[in-house]
């Protein structure tokens, strides 16, 4: 499961209990993946936003996508997805820092045992569905 919070992409792998973070250029790559964009388009998007030689950007994107696949967070699909129309206007570009996939394993035991008890619409811990009988 994943969500972008204050510009940072947070991902949890429920199966392993590891959680990951992607910021800045990494978050842009992730959002491209979410849209189903092809690798080349993602690299293009980064090149619009960041100031770096095209070769540096495309190899950084390639490396990050490889890492995301290796961690089992994304899959390569055959379809390229709908083509993204990139508008020609270019604003000032930010200095490029290679995207980093942060991986954290310090909460593994907690995440692996999902919190069954912590949220409840009816009562916590709530009685079985057959109704609550007093013992």
């Amino acid at each position, binding site marked *: *499961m*994943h*969500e972008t*919070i*204050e510009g*940072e992409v*947070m991902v*949890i792998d429920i199966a392993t209990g590891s*959680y990951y*973070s992607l910021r800045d250029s990494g978050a842009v790559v992730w959002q491209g993946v979410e849209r189903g964009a092809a690798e080349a388009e993602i690299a293009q998007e980064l090149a619009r936003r960041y100031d770096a030689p095209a070769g540096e950007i495309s190899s950084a994107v390639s490396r990050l996508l490889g890492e995301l696949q290796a961690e089992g967070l994304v899959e390569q699909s055959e379809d390229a997805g709908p083509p993204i129309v990139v508008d020609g206007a270019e604003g000032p570009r930010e200095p490029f820092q290679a995207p980093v996939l*942060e991986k*954290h394993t*310090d*909460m593994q*035991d*907690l*995440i*692996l*045992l*999902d*919190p*069954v*008890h*912590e*949220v*409840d*619409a*009816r*009562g*916590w*811990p*709530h*009685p*079985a*569905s*057959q109704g*609550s*009988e*007093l*013992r």
Partner: protein
Amino acid sequence: MSQSGSRVSVMIGVYNGARYLAEAIDSVLAQTRPAFELIVVDDGSDDGSGEIARGYGSPVRCIRQERGGMAAARNRAVGDATGDYFAFLDADDRFPPDKLECQLAAFAADPTLDVVYGHVSEFLSPDLDAGARALLRAPRANVPWPTPNLMLVKRDALLRVGGFSTELKVGIGVDWYARSVEAGLKSAVPPVVVLERRLHAENNGIRERAFKPQYLHVLKHALDRRRTG
């Protein structure tokens, strides 16, 4: 052997948990190393949970409050507790009989510890029918679980970390654990089962949907604190 300096306050928060509450309380009263007090906070139940708790008498006592949620109930109990060590128990779980004995032994072996966790074994609630059972995942047996749900923590250490977050609906334990690590608490996770956790929720689907965003927020905030700290 003198017991002073090692009194344990066990705290149970309950909201409409009449079905399993007595089992939880009984498991505390069956401890080989008795608790000094068992505080049950009745968080506005209307199913008789409060009556069940009040039926026991010392060392059990019941505090009634208006509905405030699990974190508020636990914090309320903490405010009322006078022990040297604190333990928490969900109203549908159970302690194995030697839980307090084992965790106190860990402290005795290393008095510099602030908090002792341990392992958990899950069990499918026996009163479930086959249909409800089918919705649950397989119970895990004897796995480490560093979480407030099974910790024994020194009073001062808990006060240093602070109470449970009343702003969260999920991730309360994860949030407290993250803050305890940031506070520098020294912990141990002895490979002993110190909690029997009941699996019985058939609304796991609801929990899944509600659980995702806030859980991720808790982890993000932990990372943010780590980066600025």
